[in-house]
């Protein structure tokens, strides 16, 4: 193998190299889009996900049959127990009229305990594709006890659909979830006013809730929240627009999900290059057998070629990198030039987030797991003092003075929570004074790190602004952490 530093015109892919390359990629499939559900208990999240899967034909015959059987065994009659008389029980959720009613929530509520209690406990991941997109759907729980699981589902989402029961409006748990989504800066929040069938498809009810939603999201600073009236149970405005809500002129939920740009699409090319080093690849004697065996006659391949091979493996957290780019390594601050980008035996000239690659640099500098490689001149100095927001996910409360572990990128460091400076009040969305945090609290803290980390404000750099707070004793996750803007570094030094 020869190392090429040749660059290609933008948009031209890697040069085939090595045995794997020729057949790498022939067909193309759509892009990936991840979305999650949120909202209060029983607002219909799982039913919606089941409806989307069902109506987009992602449910196969045997799954449908097993859900039909389970629905019958649980006496499901096509509505919720105790739903008002006058609601149409025969609105056939995905069956012939008069046929067996199926509980669409059972398509995702797959655990025994979930089926017994009729609630969602943990996130279910389901998959479906349209011509344009492959969707990963995370159906999250609504129950306050399982907020940690909803945070899990929302943390990777390109969009979150928040459900509201049309009969109930915005509840405390709706507000909690909206706060979490705002905290995580989920790129798109869509609100679905569900069970519109139970309020007689009333435009007035919808408008009142939509107004409330707009007020709440404006106070929270959530931009451009779309509100859609739906019935997850009977399918109105889920895949196709419904004639029963003729007063609603906007798109169906699926149309929205098809059209929203994903995070990668939003961020690509816009964010500076960031690359947490996961591993140093330095095989020396331990080469893959097919490389070790290759004769070295051509000088291409063979053990000699790789004797001094050294590259830094990782996944681009943001931005893109090309051969020839100048980069800075943090926390050391040393600089070098990218001379090669390897994708498993293929020598490529450009890599883009979220690609996993190995980078080769011109200079022999000391780089280890935990370091961050960044586009030169784009980074503020690493810091030992963090101002951060935490979403506390553990039943064990946080007290000032707690010793914790912080995992940021590929590095884990010891830290001290010096002070809790406030906690968010769900009613007013204002921070109140606090000296600790409890399960599901969102609060602000000051943290002192045992060694400096290259952090950036989460609002501007999701990947380098996020961290985990881990219990040093048992290894459990205590909180999701998000770096705040530091007073004093308002300048983005790009």
């Amino acid at each position: 193998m020869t190392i090429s530093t040749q660059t290609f015109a933008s948009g031209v892919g890697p040069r085939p190299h090595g045995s794997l390359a020729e057949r790498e990629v022939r067909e193309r499939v759509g892009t990936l889009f991840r979305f999650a559900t949120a909202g209060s208990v029983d607002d219909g999240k799982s039913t919606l996900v089941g409806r989307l899967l069902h109506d987009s034909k992602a449910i196969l015959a045997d799954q449908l049959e097993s859900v039909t059987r389970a629905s019958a065994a649980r006496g499901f009659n096509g509505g919720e127990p105790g739903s008002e008389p006058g609601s149409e029980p025969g609105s056939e959720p995905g069956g012939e009229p008069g046929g067996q009613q199926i509980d669409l929530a059972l398509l995702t509520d797959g655990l025994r305990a979930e089926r017994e209690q009729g609630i969602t406990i943990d996130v279910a991941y389901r998959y479906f594709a349209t011509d344009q997109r492959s969707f990963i759907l995370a159906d999250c729980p609504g129950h306050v006890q399982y907020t940690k699981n909803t945070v899990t589902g929302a943390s990777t989402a390109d969009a979150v659909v928040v459900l509201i029961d049309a009969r109930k409006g915005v509840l405390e748990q709706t507000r909690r979830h909206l706060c979490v989504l705002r905290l995580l800066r989920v790129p798109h929040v869509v609100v679905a006013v569900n069970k519109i069938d139970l309020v007689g498809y009333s435009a007035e009810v919808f408008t009142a809730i939509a107004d409330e939603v707009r007020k709440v999201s404006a106070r929270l600073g959530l931009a451009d929240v779309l509100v859609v009236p739906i019935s997850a149970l009977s399918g109105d405005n889920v895949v196709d627009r419904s004639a029963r809500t003729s007063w609603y002129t906007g798109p169906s939920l699926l149309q929205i999900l098809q059209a929203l740009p994903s995070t990668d699409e939003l961020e690509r090319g816009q964010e500076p290059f960031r690359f947490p080093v996961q591993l140093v690849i330095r095989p020396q004697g331990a080469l893959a057998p097919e490389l070790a065996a290759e004769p070295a006659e051509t000088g291409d391949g063979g053990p000699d070629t790789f004797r001094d091979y050294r590259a830094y493996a990782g996944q681009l957290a943001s931005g893109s990198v090309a051969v020839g780019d100048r980069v800075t390594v943090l926390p050391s601050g040393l600089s070098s030039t990218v001379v090669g980008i390897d994708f498993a035996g293929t020598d490529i000239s450009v890599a883009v987030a979220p690609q996993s690659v190995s980078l080769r640099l011109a200079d022999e500098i000391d780089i280890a797991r935990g370091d961050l490689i960044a586009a030169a001149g784009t980074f503020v100095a690493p810091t030992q003092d963090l101002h951060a927001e935490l979403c506390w996910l553990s039943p064990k409360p946080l007290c000032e003075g707690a010793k914790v572990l912080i995992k940021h990128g590929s590095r884990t460091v010891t830290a001290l929570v010096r002070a809790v400076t406030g906690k968010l009040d769900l009613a007013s969305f204002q921070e109140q004074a606090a000296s600790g945090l409890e399960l599901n609290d969102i609060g602000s803290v000051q943290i002192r790190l045992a060694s400096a980390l290259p952090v950036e404000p989460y609002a501007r750099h999701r990947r380098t602004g996020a961290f985990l707070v881990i219990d040093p004793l048992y290894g459990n996750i205590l909180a999701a952490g998000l770096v705040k803007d530091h007073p004093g570094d308002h300048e983005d030094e790009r």
Partner: protein
Amino acid sequence: MSIYTTEDTTLASDDTRAGAKVSAGAAFGAAAAPPRMTSLDVLESEALHIIREVVAEFERPALLFSGGKDSVVMLHLATKAFWPGKVPFPVVHVDTGHNFPEVIAFRDRTVERLGLRLVVGRVQDHIDSGELAERADGTRNPLQTAPLLEAIRANRFDAVFGGARRDEDKARAKERILSLRDDFGQWDPRNQRPELWNLYNGRHTVGQHVRAFPISNWTELDIWRYIERVGIELPGLYYAHQREVYARDGMWRAVGDVSLPRADEPVLTKMVRYRTAGDMSCTGAVESTAATVAEVIREVAASTITERGATRADDRISEAAMEDRKKDGYF
């Protein structure tokens, strides 16, 4: 050729006209926007990231390798993650004694080709020692847990890669990518750790271990598209071939030492293929003429039944068969 498409497709403002307003700050079509990745590219990079993260954070990882398509893809990804180095961990196989001989042969060839150490846990050993008993229905699939846990204990593995996918089963759909198991290898679905962003938490206490599922988010079709894209070799039984079979439980069972037809089950020769390579005693074949990867992709895309529904007798035992096995320490 590129690992991403060369066509630069920006979501034009047309696409967002449907009322789906774009969040503030989104500027499209910016001058040198790099090429975008397809969903398969993203899934591949996600898997590589997870594999590397586990190798970095754990001391003694291992990979479950059965010769089935998912584990073959997993192993392929592992070779990519460490290229040009060698895969830095051993592979583990739980041999039920009911495996297809050609799959075992494939397993051995692959392990040899990659120069890996193979650890085999045998169900038969545990039956011989009296620790496990043969089941009335003759399947050994649920018996794999004991030899698996024994292999993990004896080798002090602290992380075990599996090729499980969330689209396979409703309990798998609930499991984290890094799934903590207690001292007994058990999964507690009601009390899973949060898993945030792409930051994986590998911390555990002595005695606990982690199961890592880097291809959690792949579907059966993704697996096949990837096999086509990269040109991965699989055991021949994944492609259409002639085989002696008999009908049982609505599936075609292969005739073999551990899978004998009863007197009332006539043996036929059919053109079949397997969608999963489990045990001969519990895995069914599907009638098929798909002899190439492209044909298999077409067949899978058009299929109206899931792979486990089509081929696994063990999952029909009860509504929560997979969850119950996983709680006990199964894959």
